[in-house]
């Protein structure tokens, strides 16, 4: 499979990348790890005139601390996110979800920023970003702005980034000491989620004091299971209490139907997997 011809630039700074995008106009596209974009190009489902490769922009790579916030560069690969000690300590949910993205080859090339910018509702890193109240910093010709995750994912494969903007970094409030689990349901190991549940909870003396639950592939965008979150808070971290709270998981969701699951099965899975995710997180 051979993509249509395109021009290619590989700038080394965000400023140059933004300029290159602006100069190339509407038909230009950013390429990060290429793990989602290349198949589309090779199947000729898209034919951008220019690819702006972010692979050489060093400032977009890596994880650092900024006070109570963890800053993950958009070009940090899944492999690096998985293994990063800061992520493991302060955003365990993100590390766990990244562990089950695709296969090792894809994780070595695919990037955190690319996954979020791609906004595939079946992608595994959107729900964790949403559940962790991440903020996304984007840069364009008009400078930088910060978009909360809840506003970033606009629709199926669509974000609130404007044309010509580049996702630079993801700011994740630290959840140090929280328990977390990402429960993914798919048919073969390297596949995307049919449904998945991202859960992070804070347990104090056997009682759940805070809870964040995000759902993957239960709508055109990732969604927060807010009814579950509020049902959990104040409950004992027991299997019974968690299962009862998890019954709210499908509320307000509008999952798609496809060959792997119809809407009803997805909603059922959301309840079962939420219960399992929270239980696994707290060890109940």
């Amino acid at each position, binding site marked *: *499979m*051979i993509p*249509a*011809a395109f021009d290619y630039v590989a700038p080394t700074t965000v400023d140059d990348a933004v300029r290159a995008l602006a100069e190339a106009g509407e038909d230009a*596209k950013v390429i990060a790890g290429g793990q*989602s*974009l290349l*198949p*589309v*190009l090779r*199947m*000729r*489902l*898209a034919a*951008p005139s220019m690819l702006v490769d972010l692979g050489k922009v060093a400032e977009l790579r890596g994880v650092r601390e900024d006070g109570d916030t963890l800053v993950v560069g958009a070009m940090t690969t899944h492999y690096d996110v998985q293994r990063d000690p800061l992520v493991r300590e302060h955003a365990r949910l993100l590390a766990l979800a990244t562990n089950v993205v695709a*296969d090792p080859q894809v994780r070595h090339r695919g990037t955190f920023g690319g996954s979020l*910018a*791609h*906004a*595939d*509702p*079946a992608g595994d890193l959107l729900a964790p970003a949403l559940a962790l109240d991440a903020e996304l910093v984007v840069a364009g010709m008009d400078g930088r702005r910060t978009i909360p995750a809840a506003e970033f994912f606009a629709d*199926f*494969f*669509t*974000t609130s*980034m404007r*044309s010509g903007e580049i996702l630079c970094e993801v700011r994740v409030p630290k959840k140090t000491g929280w328990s977390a689990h990402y429960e993914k*349901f*798919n*048919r*073969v*190991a*390297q*596949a*995307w*989620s*049919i449904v998945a549940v991202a859960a992070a909870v804070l347990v104090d003396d056997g009682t759940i004091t805070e809870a964040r639950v995000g759902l993957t*592939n239960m709508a055109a965008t990732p969604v927060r299971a807010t009814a579950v979150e509020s049902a959990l808070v104040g409950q004992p971290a027991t299997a019974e209490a968690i299962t009862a709270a998890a019954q709210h998981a499908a509320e307000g969701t509008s999952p798609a*139907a*496809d*060959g*792997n*699951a*119809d809407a009803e*099965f997805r909603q*059922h*899975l959301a309840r*079962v*997997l939420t219960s399992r995710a929270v239980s696994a997180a707290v060890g109940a």
Partner: protein
Amino acid sequence: MTSTIEPEIGRARLRKEDARLIAGRTRWTDNLALPGLLHMAVARSPMAHARITNIDVDAARRMPGVLAVFTGADLAGEQGSLPCAWPITEDMKSPDAPSIAVEEVNFAGEAVAVVVARSAYEAADALEAVDVDYDELPVVLDLEGAVADGADLVHPDLGTNASATWVFDSAEAGTGTDVERAIADAEVLIERTYRQQRLIPAFMEPRSVVVDPTGEQLTMWSATQIPHILRVMLAMTLSVPEHKVRVIAPDVGGGFGGKLQVTPEEILTFLVARRLGKPVKWTETRSESLLSAHHGRDQVQKLTLAARRDGTVTGLKVELLADMGAYLRLVTPGVPILGAFMFNAIYKFPAYRFACTNVFTNKTPTDAYRGAGRPEATYAIERLMDELAAELGVDPIEIRERNWIRHEEFPFDTVAGLTYDSGNYEAATAKAKELFGYDALRAEQRERRERGDTVQLGIGTSTFTEMCGLAPSRVLGALSYAAGGWEHAAVRMLPTGKVEVVTGSSPHGQGHETAWSQIVADQLGVPFEDVEVLHGDTQSSHRGMDTYGSRSLTVGAMAVVRAADKVKAKAAKVAAHMLEAAEDDVEFAGGAFGVRGAGAEAKSVSIQDVALAVFAAHDLPDGVEPSLDSEATFDPENFSFPHGTHLCAAEVDTETGRVTIRSYVAVDDVGKVVNPLIVEGQVHGGLAQGIAQALYEEAVHDESGTLTTGTLADYLVPSAVDLPEFTTDRTETAATSNALGVKGVGEAGTIASTPAVVNAVVDAVRHLGVSDVQMPCTPMRVWQAIRTGRTDAGGLGGEAGGGLGSINPEGGAR
């Protein structure tokens, strides 16, 4: 010299082929580069059934690097009709099968134009510029609908979608009694309808063809399993003189039956190269491969099993609808017929009837896929035996035992008219049960049922046999197949004592170079390393029937043995002369000739000495030709009948429907084993593909006939992590139908495993009211079956899910 050399047969040698394959020094067809090579790309119909009203190729012709664009109209005069070598009945209906559509397209993926350019990139770009207008025609997809009254027709000129109906009836054949009688008298009837979903062979090396028309002979390199058959068919289909065509199958990366074909693209590359007088290459993309290379399986099986209350089976009636797709390819119509002899399996049915109607639909043609007809049959009977056991409340292994052929009953004439030469089902089953821990697992199953565990345990049995080693030529003749089932080999002794073996088998991953070397090393007493195996080029290997149907060892290697026998016979004459002894007094052992009874210290001549003496030819006995080289063609007298017992323990998560294979034991009896490592590899791969049918793979078309599982993100080929650890073992009952005592192993794992897995799934949830789950047993299907008892609920429907199938055509984020 005494023979102290360890025999090669039975040694777990690493494969000779592997270092090269692993290190990337592989000669795939696509790696070939010839001076001035042009690249062809194929434009394909997105419509499943339509009339072509106009094709505009002007823009494509003007694209950079493009040399030519051809449509069906341009090639109609010379393309002929793709061959079908298996007219199963005299009145079989077979439409003309063009390589490139001329007026009408009959499946989505059919070629409508070809572009030839200086580079593959330019060819791909120009494809986009080919503009085809279609008038849609009604699309025929469903098998039962296709044969209903008033159905829309795939080929209206045939007047029907039914290509042929093939019947075997044991009462008529005199091999058994009347099945209708058995059904009327039955104390227990098990009636079921099973669906064999459509599968895609999904070989890893995409198909590729290079044709060089610039020499005296036209040379075609192709990623094919059948270079010899391909050459004959090119000659017959295109009316080119056979001696002016040379076909080469270089390294071929998997086939599984998927490359047992004379493909439209082979014909098109040939025609285009001949027209342009320049070498041309075509290599398919993965999407093209999944879409247009032939598919497999796809049957609806209506089954009736009659039995007595004591569990004795009394009759089996099989009524099949088999999907041919839009055209009959090389052996399409015969694939379901191969199953006709296998539904009765290892059981002593007194009455049997098989009737199969082959049906046209507007889908990619089907043809051979690993097992070809036999997995479908084995699935049906092994599922039925479990159903009978459940109905009677008897252990599934016990019900089989009551009905199977006992080892002392061989050779056994079956109700389907075959003679099974050997087997020991008792031994394989006993070994499998022990390795599996059958009784302990049954106890655990009971305990978990009683406890109401959300994850239930099921045990599936498959005591399979199959017929392979295709095939005795007279049997193929009786089945109206167009060719014989022999195989050819030659053994050449080089002056330095090294050996070249030429085989008509055409390996594409099986390891023939290793196995043949082991066999010849033993036969001629030469070192394993001294044997070179040549194959896959009609110039060096001029006669052959190629590789499919687990035939290479039982037929192809037997030809090698026969040729080696002739070499030894020729060498014995010369050796006797060199030893100044009578030929009758000379014996051959451990690679050397000596005088019988002369003792270890006596003079002997090695086969290498003889080879050199023959090369010099200074002093040969009168009338002896200066050559030891010999050939042989072997035609088997019978099939080989591998068998075995496979046991699968599967856990079913009743909350999510997910099936997890917990343990899998395969005890296979493939007769004498040449190389245990190769056998192990074949079994592992076979199991993976059989399990894939049970749990993962299905080719799905939407209502307009578009393949929705068109990428490997949607057509779920499992990888190693998705499969369990396999426990494999063997019993060894030598085949009596060939001198090596060997049986085929290439398809056994695939044939055996599918029913073992589905039986386990059903067994896990039978107490919840489930008696069947349609394949593949996806989580949604299993969950629905538990909830509603519906077996097909939540099928893969029209749309593939997730993966690249969910890719945004706009190219992602905006």
